[in-house]
C-alpha cells in the first residue's frame, strides 16, 4: 500500500538518479513527437506529483500486453514507469495473491475515489459464468472498479476492441470496455484505447506519462491517442519506395522477399493499420514485422481477426471465389436462354396474329 510520497521523493528513495529520470521523460516525450523541452517539463510536473495509484485489471487476456511492457530489451527505461506510478494491483506482477490481493484493490477503490487510474487488458465476457476471480464475475469487478476511477486506459486490442475472445464465434460474449460503457454495463469514464496485439512498450508508458502530465491526449475516432496511432504503418514503412515502384514479394522466399520488397501481395495490412510500429519499432527499435519479412496483421485495428486471411492482400476479397462465380455464370446462361425463349414465343404469336 502506497504512502503519499511524490514521484520525485520515491525516485530519490530508490536511488534512481535525476539524470536517469530525465532521460526516461525525454525518450517518452520524443516518442510522442512533443516539442523539445517537453521532456524537462514532464519531468518537473511528474516529480511534484503524488505517485498516482494504478489498478491493473486483467480479464480475458493472454498476458501478452504485460509481457510486452516487462520484457523489453532495455528494461531500465520502461521499468521506470513502475517508479512513476504506484501499481497497486496487478495479478501477474504483484507479490500478494488470493484474498490479500483482492483486499489491496478494494482499499485503493475505497481510499482514493476519483483519483486512481484503471488499466485494463483483456476483454470482458458478458455471458455468465465464463470468467470469475475470487467468486466475482469479471463484469462485476470491472463495473465496481471503474465506478470510482479517474480514467480508464485499455491496454491491448482485447480490452480496446474485443480482440481474440471477441473474434468469431465469440462463445463467451466478450466485449471491449468501450462497448460495455456504450451499453451502460459499466460507468462511463475518460477512456484511452492503447490497442495493439500487444501494444509497443513505449506506447503504453508514453500514454500513461502523457495522461499524468497533460491529461487525456488527443484521440482518434476509436479512442486511440493520435500521437501514436495517427498514421498508418504504410505511410511510415521503410519499404514504401518498393510499393511505389511496384516491386512486390510474391512468396516468402522469392527474390523479392529476399531483397526486402513490399509485402502487399502477401497480405500486409499496413495501409489500413494505425500504429507506431514502423517508426518506433519493437525491442528497443530492433525491428518490426515487416522488417522481419512478414506483412502487418493489422493487430491494432478493431476486428482484425475477422477480416479474412492475413495473407489475402487488401485488393482481394474473401468471397466465394471462382466456384461461386461459376454458379452465377450457369444461372446467367439459364436465365438468358429463358428470356430468349420467351421472346421467340412472343414473336411467333405476333407473326401468327398478323
Amino acid at each position, binding site marked *: 500500500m502506497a504512502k503519499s510520497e511524490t514521484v520525485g521523493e520515491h525516485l530519490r528513495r530508490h536511488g534512481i538518479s535525476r539524470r536517469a529520470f530525465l532521460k526516461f521523460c525525454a525518450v517518452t516525450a520524443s516518442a510522442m513527437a512533443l516539442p523539445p523541452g517537453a521532456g524537462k517539463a514532464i519531468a518537473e510536473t511528474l516529480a511534484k506529483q503524488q505517485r498516482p495509484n494504478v489498478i491493473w485489471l486483467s480479464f480475458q487476456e493472454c498476458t501478452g500486453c504485460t509481457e510486452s511492457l516487462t520484457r523489453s530489451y532495455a528494461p531500465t527505461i520502461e521499468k521506470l514507469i513502475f517508479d512513476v506510478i504506484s501499481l497497486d494491483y496487478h495479478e501477474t506482477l504483484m507479490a500478494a495473491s488470493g484474498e490479500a490481493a483482492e483486499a489491496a484493490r478494494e482499499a485503493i477503490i475505497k481510499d482514493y475515489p476519483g483519483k486512481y487510474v484503471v488499466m485494463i487488458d483483456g476483454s470482458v465476457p458478458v455471458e455468465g459464468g465464463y470468467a470469475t476471480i475470487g467468486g466475482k464475475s469479471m463484469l462485476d469487478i470491472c463495473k465496481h472498479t471503474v465506478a470510482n476511477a479517474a480514467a480508464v486506459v485499455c491496454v491491448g486490442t482485447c480490452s480496446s476492441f474485443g480482440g481474440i475472445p471477441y473474434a468469431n464465434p465469440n462463445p463467451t460474449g466478450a466485449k471491449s470496455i468501450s462497448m460495455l460503457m456504450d451499453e451502460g454495463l459499466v460507468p462511463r469514464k475518460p477512456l484511452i484505447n492503447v490497442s495493439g496485439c500487444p501494444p509497443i512498450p513505449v506506447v503504453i508508458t508514453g500514454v500513461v506519462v502523457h495522461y499524468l502530465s497533460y491529461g487525456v491526449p488527443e484521440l482518434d475516432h476509436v479512442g486511440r491517442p493520435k500521437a501514436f496511432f495517427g498514421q498508418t504503418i504504410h505511410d511510415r514503412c521503410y519499404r514504401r519506395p518498393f510499393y511505389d515502384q511496384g516491386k512486390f514479394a510474391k512468396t516468402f522466399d522469392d527474390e523479392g522477399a529476399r531483397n526486402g520488397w513490399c509485402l502487399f501481395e502477401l497480405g500486409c495490412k499496413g495501409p489500413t493499420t494505425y500504429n507506431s510500429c514502423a517508426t518506433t519499432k519493437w525491442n528497443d527499435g530492433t525491428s518490426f514485422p515487416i522488417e522481419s519479412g512478414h506483412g502487418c496483421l493489422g493487430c491494432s485495428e478493431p476486428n482484425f481477426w475477422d477480416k479474412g486471411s492475413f495473407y489475402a492482400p487488401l485488393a482481394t476479397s474473401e468471397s466465394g471465389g471462382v466456384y461461386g462465380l461459376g454458379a452465377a455464370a450457369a444461372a446467367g446462361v439459364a436465365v*438468358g436462354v429463358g*428470356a*430468349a425463349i*420467351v*421472346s421467340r414465343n*412472343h*414473336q411467333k404469336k*405476333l*407473326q401468327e396474329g*398478323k
Partner: protein
Amino acid sequence: MSGDTQSTIDLKLPGLSVDKPDVRYDQQGDMTDPERLSQAMRNFAKDFGYVAAVHMDSCVHCGMCAEACHFYVSTGDAKYTPIHKIEPFKQAYKREAGPFAFFYRLFNLKPAVTADELRQWQELLYDSCTVCGRCSLICPMGIDIAGLVSHARHAMFKAGLVPHELHAVAQRAETEGSPLGATPKVFAERVEWMGDEHDIDIALDKEQADVLLTMSSIEIMKYPNAIAAAAKVMEYLGLSYTFSTEGYEATNFGLLSGNADWQRDMSLKLINAAIKCKAKYLILPECGHAYSALRWAGATMYGKPLPFKVRHISEFLAEQVSNGKLKLKGDLHKSVTFHDPCQVTRRGGVIEGPRTVLKALGVDLREMKENRGTNWCCGGGGGVVTIHRADQIRYKAFELKMRQVEDTGAEMLVTTCSNCRQTFDDGQAHFNWDKTAQSMLELVVENLVEA
C-alpha cells in the same frame, strides 16, 4: 382515307416521277392512335433475329453515324442522325424482344412511345433516309443502321404511317404491277416501240430462254432506250433471252415502303416468270434497290434457294467484258467519273465491275475522292425522290454530290442506276448544273465493236 392512288406522272418533268399532291395524306387507314402505336411496336419486334437484336443492343451514342449521313452533313441538323431514326423502335425492341424485356415491361423502364412521336418519326425514316448504308459503314460498333431502318419501315407501314406519295406508288405497284403506270400492257407497248425505234426484234414472253431480262418502271417510262440496250447486249452475246409481261418490274416498292407482303408479291412475280421460262439467269436492270430486293432477299421471299442466278446488269457486263465476249471499242477518250449506286456497290457488292467496264471503254477514269464503298449517296434512293416534302433536303444533299463530281474535273458522269439518273436529272434542273448522270449500259451499247 387512302390518298389518291391514281396519281399521274408527268414525263416532261425532269426527274420527278410523281406529282406533288395538293393535299397530303401521310396516314393510311382508320386506326385509332393506340391501335397504330400497338401495330408499330409489335410489328417491329416481330421479325427480329439475333443479328438485328445485337445491333439494337450495341449503340453507344457516339454520334459518328451522323458524320457519314449526307442529310446531316449537308444540313447540319442533328435530327437526321441515323441511329436517332431508330429511337422509338429501340424502345420497342427493349420492351418486346430484348433480353430484359420482362423488366422493361414490368417497371415501364422506357418511356412509352406515342403515336405523335411516330408521326414525327415518319419524316426521319422516309424523307431523310435513302437506306444508303453509309452510316452502317462508319459505325464503330458495326451496327447496320440502314438495315434497322428497313425493319422500322415494316412497323410504320402496319401503323399506316407511310408518306403520301410513297404509299401511293407502292399501292399502284401492288395493284397494277408498276408504281408509275407501266402496266403489263404499257410495258408490252413500249417493248414494241423500242423494237421499232432501234430496229431489233426484242424477245417478249418466250416460252423458254436462258436469260430473263427485267426492267425498272423508271427506265420503262422515262429512259425506255434501256429496254433496247439490254436486248442488244443479249443479241450481241448470242444469248437466248426474253422479257416477260408476267414478271418484268424490277423495282420493289413493297421493300421501299415497308410492306413485307407486297415485297414478296413483287419479287415472286419475277421469280415465277424466271422459273416459268426455265431461265438460268435473271438479270436486274440499272436500278439500285432492285438488286437488294432480288439478289439479296429474293430467296428469302421464295422460301428456298432460287433455281437460277441473279445478276445486276453492270456485273453481268463486267463479266462479259472480262471473258472477252463483250468487245468494246475502247476509244471513248473522255474524262469520266463514276457514281456508285449505294444498293449496287456499298450494299450490294458490285464494286469493281463498273471499273472493269469503264476501263474497257477507254475512258480517262477519275475516281471521286470518296469512291466505291464510301461514295456519297445521290440522295434520291430509298423512295426519297418520290416524297416532295423531302425535296429541299434532297437538294441540299445533292450539293455534296455536285461538289464531289466537280472536284474530279471530269467532263462526264456515269452511273448504273436509273433512280440515281433520275435524281441527277432533277438536280441538274434545279441547280442549272451542266452535268447529269449517263447510263453505263447505254454507253456500252453505243461502243460495241461491230460483230
